[in-house]
């Protein structure tokens, strides 16, 4: 299972704060997450806590964290 953790406004694209998805084979992040292009430049992606992109390949047991780019007040 791939674990997906979403923060802030991105929860609406994932359907919750934490969900799990079964993968039959390795896939790109963009093939798992349906985030509209206009939102993509405001997203930070981590794969297993390391910087990732929409083209990072993930497999079962990986964790994807997606969070908004924030400005820290």
């Amino acid at each position: 299972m791939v674990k997906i953790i979403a923060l802030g406004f991105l929860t609406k694209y994932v359907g919750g704060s934490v969900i799990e998805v079964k993968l039959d084979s390795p896939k790109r992040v963009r093939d798992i997450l349906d985030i509209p292009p206009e939102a993509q430049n405001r997203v930070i992606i981590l794969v297993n806590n390391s910087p990732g992109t929409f083209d990072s390949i993930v497999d079962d047991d990986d964790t994807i964290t997606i969070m908004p780019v924030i400005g820290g007040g």
Partner: protein
Amino acid sequence: MLVSLLKGWNGKILRVDLGRGKAVIQEYSSDFALQFLGGRGFAIKILWDELPIGVNPLSPLNKLILAAGPLTGLTVVSTGKLVVASKSPLTGGYGDGNLGSNAAIQLRKSGFDAIVIEGASDKPTYLYIENGKVEFNDAKDLWGLTTFETEEKLKKVHGGDCGVLSIGPAGENIVKFATITSQEGRSGGRPGMGAVMGSKNLKAIVLRGTQSIPVHDEEKLNLLGSEASKSILKAEGYDFWIRQGTMATIEWCQVNSTLPTYNFREGVFDYAKEVDGYAMESVKKLRRGCPNCVMTCGNVIEDYEKKFSELDYENVAMLSSNIGLGDIRKVGVLNRLCDELGLDTISMGNSLGFVMEASEKKLIGEKVEWGDFDAAKSLIIDTAYRRGLGDFIAEGVKRMSEKIGGESMDWAMHVKGLEISAYDCHTAPAMALAYGTSPIGAHHKDAWIISWEVRTGRFDYSEGKVDKLIELQRIRGGMFESLVACRFPWIELGLSVDWYPKFLEAATGVTMTFDDIFMVADRIYTLIRAFWVREYGANWGRHMDIPPARWFKEPLTKGPLAGQKLKWDEWNRMLDMYYDKRGWDYNGVPRKSTLRKLGLEFTINVLEGLVKLSE
């Protein structure tokens, strides 16, 4: 050329002498406007020119500046703000802050871009300023009131449509981190601008203006303003921002191990869910904000004592995880008390964390346990009135640690005497550099770079990070603080920064590229740096830019990044790169060539008499 020939700026500064009870109007030149733009730029130039070197920040010779910018009060998104600035009694260097208030708009409608307040009154006074007419009014009946009560009373006298800036008991009692407050929760001037106001016996400033602000191309400005507003309203994440505002940052920082916890020992808090944006939503009653804003980011909750308290990320993080308190409604009480009493929430939360740690380590006699709400509440009140342990706290963490001595210096969480804002930096080296080089001491306003670090590599100490930091300082600390506009539309909802030169052009008729704006930003930054060097003289050195030892010595023990800490040598290499790129020497002192390039030749003679200047 006087600036009145340009539009956008009013071209006038109101000078108020409290000692003599006199006010005069000064016109300024277009050169001054073009070189320093407004806000922070005006403030530092006036302070450099007019303060005696080494002046006591609490003496009548110090000056308090209220400065708007060429966008303040116009039909442009989130421009209802002004800068308050002075020599800081907390740090001994340059201090400023911005706050959103109707007072900013009334200032501009009164026909001024700034007010310079000098001298001191011999009795409590408040100023009523209407279109350039200044009344020096008796504030005997206001002295001792909270900021909320003061504003309410003054609005009963002068009408609800005026703008009010006031201090609470903390400012009156010269708490070194007292702020200036407006509209029950809009505070500014963390480095003790409220104490400077208190030292002048000035309780409040009431502003009303009925004039129109001169604009170069009103039609174009209105159009640009409305297009930018529309773009904010349809931005990705706008709905969520309206729900949580900056409070969403609690969860973000918890996930990224940057939530200040137990006096910045850790970056994660076991009770984060009790104080995050969702917890806040469960007790939220309404939203408030600055004038001219469609993002209204003040989340007002009903607190534990059933009163309204306006929350945002910084005050919640510092008064919850940093002191070990996991109850949003109780945090609301502490926050409201700070706003009422006129205390800076960041420095207060930091100081409470320091005292709790000192108590745990038995370095002070008093017992103050982590997460003890009642003790925290009493200490906040005692700080404002300088009673008992509160009198010690009122001096800030740097002075407290100097008094306690020993290893407490390692975990006195400040840079240059200003307590650190709410981001732990064990795993954010460039953010630690941002704190180190912030022009007022450790504050996040000028550059917040953690998103960039998380995206590009937490543990890098790269040149790319230094470049990004300088870019952020130019935009946030330079452009936004001198145009005086809120940075949130850009940083939180992605409004392009390209709008701002267009706003400036429509407002003033002056065309500036980003290169031009960055030149102004660098001039302001370097002049502020020169001011610090001038005030510290031989005591100035590289050590002034170094963040607390805790982040270098003690690794995180909790969360996914347990074991991590900053690397001393690599961090210092980033600081060297930073100085090089700024044109400053090994000690962070501007080089003569840099001062000349930025049109700051007038500082060279002064600085040469105090420190060694490199070519």
